[in-house]
């Protein structure tokens, strides 16, 4: 697996898409700093990019890479290595190089702006960690979808649907549900619903650093416990790790059953 990972990284790091992706984040972040010296304003804009674009790009790129390397994958399948190593290696290659481009593209402008001496360091680290986790989760989901669908059009449509669901529609249903049952105690359901969506989880992870003052205004005891201590941070982080593991298990299962 390490060898497959190594060579996919060799391949991907030199891909123009990765340069493009890196360049996008670099210019975007520099642009934000140029438009506003206010760190927390920059953070909010970056948060939106991380919550919407990072999952979308990771999904699309994962699918593209998978479908484009089909023939090469066949060559690898004929080599004396277990299947799961091939797909996990490729997946880690994609997720790793996406994360690398993202980290470098967003991280370098921070360094230029002396972030590591700033009080906002924890907030920006949370942003970077969320971006990396979402890159891993969504490229994993895209690999799983691609493994399950040989038809590219179908694969892409499905992936966009999943992204749309998790990035936007889910919160719509969520809000509808909360408003509908507003006369009931909703603290636990609200937290539980957040856990079932990795984008919501990342958002909450960032909120705990960005908007803690507002979150603390809530009266409920469960929220208070969740938001007011490190427990919330820890739970959200662990749940995200689970989300990272899920597609990996899916990839293992799907690849062991698939015909090429």
């Amino acid at each position: 697996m390490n060898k497959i990972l190594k060579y996919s990284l060799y391949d991907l790091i030199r891909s123009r898409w990765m340069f493009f992706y890196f360049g996008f984040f670099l210019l975007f972040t520099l642009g934000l700093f140029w438009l506003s010296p206010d760190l927390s304003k920059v953070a909010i804009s970056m948060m939106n990019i991380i919550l919407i674009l990072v999952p979308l790009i990771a999904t699309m790129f994962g699918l593209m890479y998978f479908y484009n390397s089909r023939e090469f994958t066949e060559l690898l399948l004929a080599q004396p290595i277990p299947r799961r190593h091939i797909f996990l290696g490729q997946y880690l290659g994609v997720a790793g190089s996406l994360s690398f481009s993202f980290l470098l593209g967003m991280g370098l402008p921070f360094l230029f702006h002396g972030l590591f001496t700033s009080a906002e360091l924890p907030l920006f680290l949370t942003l970077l960690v969320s971006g990396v986790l979402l890159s891993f989760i969504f490229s994993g989901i895209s690999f799983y979808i691609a493994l399950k669908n040989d038809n590219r059009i179908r694969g892409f449509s499905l992936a966009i649907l999943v992204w749309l669901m998790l990035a936007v529609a889910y919160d719509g249903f969520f809000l509808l549900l909360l408003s509908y049952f507003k006369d009931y105690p909703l603290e636990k359901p609200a937290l539980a619903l957040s856990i079932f969506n990795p984008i919501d989880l990342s958002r909450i992870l960032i909120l705990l650093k960005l908007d803690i003052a507002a979150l603390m205004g809530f009266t409920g005891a469960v929220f208070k416990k969740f938001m007011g201590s490190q427990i919330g941070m820890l739970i959200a982080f662990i749940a995200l790790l689970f989300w990272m593991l899920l597609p990996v298990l899916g990839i293992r299962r799907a690849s062991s059953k698939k015909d090429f």
Partner: protein
Amino acid sequence: MIAIERLHKQFGKNKVLKNLSLSFEQKGTISAILGPNGSGKTTLIKSILGMVLPSQGNIHLFGKNIRGQWQYRDHISYLPQIARFPENLKTAELIAMIKDLRQRPAREEELIRLFDLQAHLQKPLAYLSGGTRQKVNLVLAFMYDNPIYILDEPTAGLDPLAIIRLKELLQEEKQKDKIILLTTHIMSLVDEIADEVVFLLDGHIHFRGSLSDLKSTYSGQAVEQAIANLLRQEQHNRQTSTRLP
């Protein structure tokens, strides 16, 4: 060496291989697997390589069932039909990668010279022409000394000189007592190098035998003619059988 027993494979409702039993035991033999499009050639090959998982039936290599195994692939050299590689790797890196995966001595340098690839070693694979990529493909397939060679359309995109070199290479391997399976659409190639023909039709083995058997059974001077007669006859049979009831 290769024993296929009652192999069934279906993709959804589409039955591609139907109760197919076949074995390749004779060393130093080149077997051409022929058949019209969709007859199951590639599925058969991929089943042997473990890329396609049988719906029913077993495949044994060197006396061992290959289900769930991967180590046996170290003894097979495979040439895939389409030569497409990671775009941003260089030719040399690709070869190094396969060597890295197999961890065995290989004779890639000799083959690189044979196919005149020295100038392309440091180029990214995306910049190579289709024919050159196929040559790289051949290097990857032939650089290991394995008892079994499985070649899917080996001549695709090759220039005449390279085809001659390929034929020499195949003869050379045959002399070394290898089992060589190949699929091709070039019937003259079959005439020239194959020892026997396995003809698949609708997931069955329609014919298996030596070239001379084939030619005499279907009264053809060359393989091409014999196959054409075979197909014509089959078409006729089918039409009459559908008219009968």
